[in-house]
């Protein structure tokens, strides 16, 4: 799919949890799971657009789930119905449908759940178990239920589901639950993704991770979003954001 630079009208911008918002833009958009858009909803400051992964695509709208973290996402939070934003996309290499087969585990940590609703939707014909970890409040998991077989939830606080890390749930399923997966998809904090990659390595399961990075062009031209892999430095925006887990050298 050729990326385009376009303007879009805000349909909705709703709070789904503490600091977590869902932005819906009107229009006929097309994207693969795991791809992203560069989004700008302001004139001069901040200088750079923000990369947001595709949360969901409907016939007449596209949705982005984001966590308010700084100046850019604060500006996004303040958007109202009818406001016009700028979008460039779809960008990057998302999860490759052709490489995903059999029984699938999707593992997310916090806002890492953003690309995974659309991934679960795309993979609804496969047998998918969804593992979602949160700090305290949970979100989006009820939207995901319809597309997957099981949903396992963990919270750091113990408010909901397993008290502890989502990676514990995954290893428990594999070790004690007798679960077997052919592919794992993962998005979340680096330390969590590293753990998931380790678990998958032990269990010999191919794992695809979606990385996050500050970006400037989003197109693969400026080289500010590189990550370190076993095959040298790669552009998160163009070579990724999805990489084979075993290739990524995590900083965490």
């Amino acid at each position: 799919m050729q990326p385009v630079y376009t303007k879009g009208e805000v349909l909705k911008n709703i709070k789904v949890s503490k600091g977590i918002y869902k932005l819906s833009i009107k229009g006929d958009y097309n994207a693969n799971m795991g791809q992203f858009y560069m989004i700008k909803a302001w004139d001069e400051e901040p200088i750079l657009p923000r990369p947001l992964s595709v949360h969901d695509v409907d016939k007449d709208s596209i949705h982005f789930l984001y966590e308010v973290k700084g100046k850019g996402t604060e500006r996004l939070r303040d958007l109202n119905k009818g406001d016009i934003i700028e979008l460039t996309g779809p960008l990057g290499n998302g999860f490759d449908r052709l490489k995903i087969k059999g029984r699938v585990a999707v593992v997310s940590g916090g806002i890492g759940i953003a690309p995974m609703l659309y991934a679960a939707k795309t993979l609804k014909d496969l047998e998918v178990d969804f593992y979602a970890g949160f700090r305290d409040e949970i979100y989006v998991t009820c939207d995901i239920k319809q597309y997957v077989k099981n949903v396992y939830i963990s919270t750091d606080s113990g408010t909901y589901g397993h008290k502890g890390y989502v990676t514990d749930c995954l290893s428990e399923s594999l070790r004690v639950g007798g679960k077997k997966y052919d592919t794992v998809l993962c998005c979340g904090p680096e330390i969590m993704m590293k753990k998931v990659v380790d678990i998958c390595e032990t269990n010999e399961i191919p794992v695809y991770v979606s990385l996050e990075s500050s970006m400037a062009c989003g197109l693969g031209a400026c080289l500010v979003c590189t990550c370190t892999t076993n095959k040298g430095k790669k552009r998160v925006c163009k070579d990724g954001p999805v990489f084979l887990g075993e290739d990524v050298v995590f900083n965490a």
Partner: protein
Amino acid sequence: MLDVDVCGVRLKNPVIAASGTFGFGEEYNQIFDVSRLGGIATKGLTLNVKEGNDGQRIYETRGGILNSVGLQNPGIEKFIGEELPKIRKLNTVIIANLGGETVDEYIKGAERLNDTDVDIIELNISCPNVKSGGMAFGIKSKDAYFVVSRVRKVCKKPLIVKLSPNAEDIVDMAIKCAEAGADGISLVNTFKAMAVDIKKRRPIFDNITAGLSGPCIKPIALRMVYEVAGAVDIPVIGIGGITCAEDAIEFIMAGASCIEVGTANFTKPNICLNIIDGMEDFMNKENIKSIEEIKGIIRRK
């Protein structure tokens, strides 16, 4: 109306995508018709492949960005073999930005580019993000004179030298580069700058310093272009925080023959087209027939 002559090369308009912000053009060609640009300055090239810097590479500040890419590039051979054929098809002037760590590397790089269909070489003696070379030649005029004169001896292409605003004396630097045989001067590269992560209590960048660009540097860049254009007889290319047609016209009126757009490409991927169209509008409204007519006009009055 917008076409300009720069070092004997005809540009269809004075707007060039600046080195480091535009890759090899291909990426942006997905978004807009890159052939509309006056030219493209390639990502900085070095004789050998460079992996670039570790750690965070980008940071936003008010009115600008700091970058610490560190000249990551595939090396000149791979550029010639893989990128140049593609970029040539984009039907615009190709300016190969050439970096190096040693004088010898610059010479070999320029030699290697002689027999290619690159239109112009932009000698990068101003990258603040690499430890050796780069800006090391862009601080003292005599060091710049040395590397430029050596490259001049072997270089068969029009040779532009891209200056650093961190030079001890930017005007003297430009004069010495002209004396060393440069066909043109482009300025400015990024300002050496820094930022601190106050929670982690350490610099944002592994290299501590990084290069500042964006609208915040424009008035300083403009002043430097004005001073340099008044001191040398060779064409000057204005760079620094240009975001709109009005900014571009300011640089032309201050003495630039054409301009480069860098950071602004990130704010809006096809912003160069807005700048080109806006310049044309302005010239129509002001009844200006050519860029030449207003080039350096503030000095003539």
